[in-house]
């Protein structure tokens, strides 16, 4: 799930053939962009307009002055990534159009409304049209027609909207996007549809089809470092608690739940994911990353393998303890269960580590050790 800023999303829309207002980031504002302008904070959070992140300017000089002001601040607590300046549109009517993947239907869905310009959640259900597109059929004229008529469009705007629906629908799969949303979609006074805003979410798993495109979602420094090791790290409560390293998403979620249910504090969690394919040194790297970037009181390594070998994990833990003197047995709880368990335990013999086979008791021990560490 890679969320794009407005100006990045608009570049995607433009590549699909959708009209966007002439615009540029404020540091690269061309001389030709002058007259009635809109200055927009580039943030990932919603509700930007209400928070003062969209302001109007008469001419280039004023736009630049406002852009500097916006760039210097923050917006409702969210960092401002950049400021985008674009030509103000002469609005006749505001619509809403989106293409997204409906996970429950398992197919793309088009959403359209004649009540654009407000948050989509606020649109009355009867005013929001919803058109699933069976991927085996692709976008059919009857589907487009239903949207066009439902919006009450006729004549020139009707055919312009029909073309736009095709561009957005095809853009969704062509760009491997989870969402392409245009709100508001402006029908200008001279009868053209122009995307006044853009919200695009890309599928990180399809990055291999789009060389050069950003393939990692935004995260904390720890989360980004965890990604670089091909793991999925989630920072939760920060330093001083228990950090837990698991194989598998399910076990990761369950461990987080169990430690919290035991009144423990979770600094963060790591799902080993692809890292299990890279040998023991990678496991040691993961431990080092967790220790140095999350600064937890205790690390719990909670691995239940029924396919891969636990020996890799055991070797990785031994390596990490040699590499990191601060990684003492008082700060490390191991739960190892499954494939090559006796062999893994043999590797760890003499390490002084607490190794517990059962999930529940291992979580209890992690919470107990974390309390001892914080009390000390």
């Amino acid at each position: 799930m890679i969320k794009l800023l407005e100006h990045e999303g608009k570049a995607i829309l433009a590549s699909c053939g959708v009209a966007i207002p002439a615009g540029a980031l404020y540091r690269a504002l061309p001389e030709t962009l002058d007259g009635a302008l809109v200055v927009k904070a580039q943030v990932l959070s919603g509700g930007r307009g209400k928070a003062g992140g969209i302001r109007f300017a008469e001419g280039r000089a004023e736009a630049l002055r406002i852009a500097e002001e916006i760039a210097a601040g923050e917006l409702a607590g969210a960092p401002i990534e950049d400021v985008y300046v674009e030509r103000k549109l002469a609005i006749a009517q505001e619509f809403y159009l989106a293409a997204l993947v409906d996970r429950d239907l398992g197919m793309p869905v088009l959403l359209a409304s004649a009540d654009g310009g407000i948050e989509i959640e606020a649109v009355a259900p009867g005013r929001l049209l919803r058109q699933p597109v069976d991927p085996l059929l692709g976008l059919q004229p009857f589907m487009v027609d239903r949207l066009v008529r439902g919006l009450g469009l006729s004549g020139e705007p009707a055919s312009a909207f029909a073309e736009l629906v095709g561009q957005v629908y095809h853009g969704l799969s062509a760009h491997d996007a989870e969402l392409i949303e245009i709100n508001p979609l402006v029908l200008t006074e001279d009868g053209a549809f122009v995307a006044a805003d853009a919200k695009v979410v890309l599928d990180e798993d399809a990055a291999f089809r789009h060389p050069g495109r950003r393939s990692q979602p935004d995260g904390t420094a720890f989360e980004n470092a965890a990604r670089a090791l091909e793991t999925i790290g989630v920072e939760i409560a920060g330093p001083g608690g228990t950090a837990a390293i698991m194989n598998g998403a399910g076990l990761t979620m369950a461990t987080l739940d169990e430690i919290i249910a035991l009144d423990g504090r979770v600094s963060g969690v790591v799902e080993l994911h692809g890292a299990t394919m890279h040998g023991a040194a990678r496991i040691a790297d993961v431990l080092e990353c967790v220790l140095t970037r999350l600064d937890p009181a205790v690390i719990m390594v909670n691995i239940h393998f029924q396919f891969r070998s636990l020996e890799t994990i055991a070797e990785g833990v031994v390596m990490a303890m040699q590499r990191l003197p601060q990684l003492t047995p008082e700060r490390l709880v191991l739960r190892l269960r499954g494939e090559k368990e006796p062999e893994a335990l043999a590797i760890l013999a003499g390490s002084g580590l607490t190794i517990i086979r059962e999930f529940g008791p291992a979580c209890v021990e992690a919470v107990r050790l974390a309390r001892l560490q914080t009390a000390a």
Partner: protein
Amino acid sequence: MAIIVDERSRILIQGITGPTGRSYARRMVANGTPLVGGVAPGRQGQVVEGVPVFDNVADAVAATGADAALSAVRSSLAMGAALEALAAGIGTLVVYTENVPLHDAIRMRAYARARGARLLGPNSAGVISPGKANLADLNDANLRPGRVGIVSKSGTLTYEVVDDIQARGFGESSVVCLGGDPVIGTSYADVLPLFEADPQTDLVILIGEPGGRMEHDAIEVIGRMSKPVIAYIAAQNAPPEKRMGHAGAIYDRGDTTAAAKLAAFRAAGCEAVGRVTEVAAAVERVLSRAAA
């Protein structure tokens, strides 16, 4: 009986010459799973663990009569492999591959439905009917035939639940892992009626997650079942909009959180728990109540 796979299944492995495919083949043959062949383009004529390798699925099906397949190819090839298997008439397909692009999952799901085939995954740990057939990454040695059915999005949570219920003396009829991705081929609502109709299943454990409405849809089906269902919904404490390893376990709206799903099961009169360590006790409770 059992559901989806049994001793009469005829199984192929797609990607049988890769390290994951070979590991699967070794385990299947060692444990008596009816593996009949494998597919790896350009490797026709080779033999892995005593079964023949074919260039493509159609030839493999023609030669072996295969009706089920496990796909362990890399993510960029997963859609092509799935469409090929479905086109060749494979009726039960496990896509074990992780990190499959969303739009690829959409296409394989749509085609499987059109063919009337059962697709588990992408990102599914597979399906196993203990003692009969194992198309899953669960180790046969850790399961034993019994009367509890399990349907889950997560492989590793299934491991935990299986260990815990076996420690209390239960075994499994079949274990079905749907996959941890947002778009998957088979839902709880598809699997629950199979357990309801299976004379070897007395009770079903449903293991769910935040994100999507699949668990909500299951509640409707449970309302029409005679057999008890215990729901365990993981990630009660997951932060919003964070991928917890499963791309599918991301929630954004009110009623797709783990807490909302847990509450929905309870409101429908279903036994539901939010900690994996509570599942086995719930099974014992429900079965003793049923026996009383």
